[in-house]
């Protein structure tokens, strides 16, 4: 009992080990690769480090931004601009938010959790993710310069309408209670 209490007060080494067990396992795999094939191991290590660096530079600012928006933007504002009855405004908001973004899709998930918590419409949240993965502005410029204007224009022209269509379909086929539990989950916990 005493040790249990200790664990609750101070997350000990064992809980940390449990949380990071996959990360530690994979680090060992990289080490094992290094000892069997030096160049592949070094490359695996290098790619992991550069990806992690990118992640570390992107995630904390996003989390701080989400935290600040969470305490400053009232629920009513999001309900009005992106909620069930916001109509075209909600679609435009999703377009604007998704395009203004930077970073890979997993950076968008904390923002979607915030939008869920503030009761934005599910279809618009899903559309926001679609926009994020198609036409976020900084990457759009990259796409034009490397792949050409035609390729980029087709990407946006095909991607955006279909993402909107599928977002609405997903919302419609989703059972009412499942959707409700999604909102409740976002309200209860901060993943």
């Amino acid at each position: 009992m005493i040790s249990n209490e200790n664990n609750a007060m101070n997350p000990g080494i064992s809980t940390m080990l449990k949380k990071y067990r996959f990360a530690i396992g994979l680090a060992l795999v990289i080490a094992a690769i290094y000892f069997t094939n030096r160049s592949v191991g070094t490359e695996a290590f290098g790619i992991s480090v550069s990806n992690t660096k990118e992640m570390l530079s992107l995630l904390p600012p996003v989390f701080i931004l989400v935290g600040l928006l969470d305490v400053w933007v009232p629920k009513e504002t999001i309900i009005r601009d992106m909620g069930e009855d916001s109509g075209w405004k909600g679609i435009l908001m999703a377009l604007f938010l998704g395009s203004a973004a930077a970073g890979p899709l997993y950076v968008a998930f904390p923002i979607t959790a915030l939008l869920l918590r503030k009761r934005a419409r599910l279809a618009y949240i899903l559309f926001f993710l679609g926009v994020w993965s198609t036409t976020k502005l900084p990457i759009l410029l990259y796409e034009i310069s490397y792949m050409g204007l035609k390729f980029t224009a087709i990407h946006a022209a095909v991607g955006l309408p279909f993402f909107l269509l599928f977002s609405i379909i997903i919302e419609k086929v989703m059972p009412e209670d499942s959707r409700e539990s999604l909102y409740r989950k976002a309200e209860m916990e901060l993943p």
Partner: protein
Amino acid sequence: MVFSFFKDRKKTKIAILKACKSFSSLLPEVLSIMMFVGISLAILSPETISRLIGAESGPFGIAVALIAGSVTLIPSFVTFPLGAALLKDGAGYAQIAAFVSTLMAVGVMTLPVEIKYFNRYTAVLRNISALLVSIIFTVVIWRLM
């Protein structure tokens, strides 16, 4: 943040605490994902990739590109230079379209994280729909370019 701090210290403190909590609960998963991707990319060389998705590889190459794009995770500002490099190495436009669009929209590796934020049902459906959009985009590119 500075502005928020001067306006309301308590609210800002709550915001920062929330941010720290979210970050530390996500860190173990994200670290694992990064290392897994690092291992996969190191094993698959660029030459192997461009042989598999060459301009003549047809629907098979497109399928390979769709799968490769769905399971890998590459920083987005590397995606297009990589796509352009692969094109120069002889990859086809349709294959590259399949690769870059799934790379940005479908995340098999990040699915556990996505489920954590949504639920299994929504996360899986969203990824399937993103895959469908990528396929449609690929077909259009195939016809037009």
